[in-house]
């Protein structure tokens, strides 16, 4: 018998905290009411669905709601409780919910070269699914991880996912998340990463489905010469809202981070981007960049951008930029002059806009997978 939120097994933190409210700065422009999950119970047993094609070289793990139905790898172990995520970007209640109730997940302890793991979450049922993922990369090790969220059927499932990525000196990680939930479901994703020493991480998300997404990405670069790349492609249409909050924390000298978020908005789609580059006192020699671009495809879409900087050291190079515009008439004209009709031309330019992010993965397998998700979304909206 699954416990309800009214009587969680771990009392304390969760009960003391409040659901997000409008006045919290981290929820500015956001649909804070969507985050109130009171009354929701964990979803029961999951269903099996059609799985996407296997990815070459990757070991596949499949979850149906809270149950691991397939997959094994010497460097991967199963979690039966939450690792205890923290939310520093406005959702401590949701983090506490995960801590109290998450019962499944994986821990990847990458120690060699070429570890490649694919995790598929098939979710169903009108309830909560709360997976955990811990990725720990040993010094000089190298890992690639794909995590996919897929709805089975048309239930309104609420996914609360928490991720903790830790890289040791000289480690390298590429981590791609694709979200293709149905338009009744919600995703709340709390993603933390910490880079020690001269490590290099690329984290990317592709948001195609879901009614509402709240994603909090907190990247800490704590080691000199650490490099964090944070990428996102979001493609909301009518009835979809993607609320992404990011934090690029530079805690040591000579650290690097680069964030590129591109949103292509269709129908009445809505996006909220709030990012902050935070440079600690003494973190001199920091290079930090943050760019959020919104491509407005219709007259009814809506984009909010809050790119922020807090700089406490002087020898730094930091910049952020945010733009919102539509496909320019010149570009359309150029393609029309070459025999492509206006509609295809617009979609061609928009695809190119997303592909600029995907090319930054610098990994053919991950790029092909991401492109496939993007292409399918474009086909469904046009």
């Amino acid at each position, binding site marked *: 018998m699954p416990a309800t939120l009214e009587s969680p097994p771990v009392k304390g933190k969760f009960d003391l905290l409040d659901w997000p409210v409008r006045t919290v700065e981290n929820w500015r422009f956001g649909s804070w009411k969507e985050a109130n999950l009171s009354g929701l119970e964990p979803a029961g047993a999951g269903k099996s669905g059609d799985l996407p094609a296997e990815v070459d070289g990757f070991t596949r793990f499949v979850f149906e709601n809270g149950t691991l139905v397939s997959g094994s790898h010497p460097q991967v172990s199963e979690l039966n409780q939450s690792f205890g995520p923290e939310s520093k970007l406005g959702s401590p209640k949701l983090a506490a919910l995960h801590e109290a109730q998450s019962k499944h997940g994986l821990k990847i302890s990458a120690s060699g070269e070429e570890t490649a793991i694919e995790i598929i979450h098939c979710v169903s049922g009108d309830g909560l699914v709360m997976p955990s993922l811990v990725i720990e990369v040993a010094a000089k090790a190298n890992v690639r991880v794909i995590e996919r969220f897929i709805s089975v059927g048309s239930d309104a499932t609420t996914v609360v996912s928490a991720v903790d990525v830790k890289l040791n000196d000289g480690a390298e990680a590429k981590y791609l998340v694709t979200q293709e939930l149905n338009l009744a479901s919600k995703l709340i994703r709390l993603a933390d990463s910490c880079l020690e020493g001269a490590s290099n991480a690329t984290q990317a998300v592709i948001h195609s489905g879901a009614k509402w997404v709240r994603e909090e990405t907190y990247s800490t670069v704590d080691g000199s010469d650490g490099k964090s790349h944070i990428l996102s492609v979001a493609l909301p249409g009518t009835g979809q809202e993607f609320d992404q909050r990011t934090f690029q924390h530079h805690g040591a000298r000579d650290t690097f981070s680069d964030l590129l978020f591109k949103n292509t908005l269709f129908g009445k789609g809505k996006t909220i981007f709030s990012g902050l580059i935070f440079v600690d006192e003494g973190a001199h020699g920091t290079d930090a960049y943050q760019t959020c671009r919104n491509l407005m495809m219709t007259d009814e879409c809506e984009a909010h951008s809050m790119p922020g900087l807090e700089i406490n050291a002087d020898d730094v190079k930091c910049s952020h*930029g945010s733009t919102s515009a539509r496909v320019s008439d010149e570009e359309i004209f150029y393609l029309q002059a070459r025999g492509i009709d206006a509609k295809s031309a617009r979609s061609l330019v928009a695809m190119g806009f997303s592909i600029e992010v995907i090319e930054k993965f610098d990994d053919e397998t991950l790029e092909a997978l991401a492109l496939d998700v993007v292409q399918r979304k474009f086909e469904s909206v046009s």
Partner: protein
Amino acid sequence: MNSETATVQQVALEKDDVGNFSYPEKHKYDAGYGLTKDTIDYISKVKDEPAWVNEFRHKALEVFESKPMPTNWATEDLDNIEFDKIRYYLSDGAKPKRSWDEVPPEVLETFDRLGVPEQERAFLAGVEAQYDSEAAYSNVKEALAEEGVIFVTCSEGLKEHEEIFRPWFGKVIPTGDNKFSALNSAVMSGGSFIYIPKGVKVKHPLQAYFRINSENFGQFERTLIIADEGSEVMYMEGCTAPKFETATLHSAVVELVAMKGAKIQYVTVQNWSSNVYNLVTKRGLAHEDAEIRWIDCNIGSRLTMKYPGVIMKGERARGEVVSIALANDGQHQDTGAKMIHAANHTTSNVVSKSISVGEGRSTYRGQVHIPKHLKGCKNNTECDALLINPKSRTDTYPAISVKGNQHVTQHEASVSQVSEEMLFYMQQRGLNEAQAMSLAVNGFINDLVSEFPMEYSVELKRLIDLEMEGSVG
């Protein structure tokens, strides 16, 4: 006392002797410490205000008391304001008179180095209650009056020009806009009311200095400027010289209304002494084809929170904020801009440059709002920050909301320091490190400084040099 200040005092005395100065009665009106309903009634009584103003003040007090401090997004330094220890109304006569001996020597030195005219020094230091400018500007005033320009204090405006004043008063910035606009509405005194009739283009910039026998830089000044169809005006407040102050809270409200095709430029140079909280609400309403420009320079104060805004209500209206901020040790310049697009084909531009010296902190906070079903709105925002020392700090928090695909917005911000190569290059050519730094900093803000009227920009450059002194080398 050095000979310089002695001369200044002598000049002042001589002028007094010939009867050019008229001092109001000393310590005549003082509402005491703290803010209650009685304080408000006292102010209304002293100012002999109509009943509607008194009622307006009382409502504002309720709003002020009911609103929380905005510390959920703003600095917690706000909690250090002790509202009970503030005197909310002192008429001119009651301003504590100072002697030259009480004015800190560094202020005097600054006057010297900036080349402030001696007549102005006495006023700026607070040794004199007023700055006598009648002789210098009487021609200007005459010309203005002939064209039908109204340029009076806010108190005079609401009494003598109620028919023009009242329809717009509190309309651009309603009392409940924020806690400090409510405070201002409750205890406002000082400030200007300006009305420019249709088609009149005022050639000379108007300055608060010009007004005679008025409370010039009030703690809670309230300014309303209405530019009627097709008119143009430039208004300047403040000055580059440090204004020596003992009051610690300044909370002004400035409302601008530009009717069809009108153009208003509002220039501020803020250099309050570094114990002052400067919490200001400034907003303009631009009708069809109108243009409102805020040109803002913040150098002084302990904490400044000021985000001049433009509501572009009519088609093709234009809004612009040009801002320079310099934050030195112990200072936080929290400035920015608000651009609300409310009609088709409206355009706005924000250019903000800040310099953080020593442990100073400068913040840019901006809002751009383009609602649904509008066409052809454009916004450009640029903010650049320059950090001089290892403990200097800068923050940028813009928020841009765009609905629909017929608009273009772009926002860009950068943070940098003066490069070693640049300094080395200049040092090779015979400048010392401090000179080289000053040249680099002046280069950084040069294009913005040129937006200020000429006499201001000359003083500004000197002032920035002065502030930078000792921070390098």
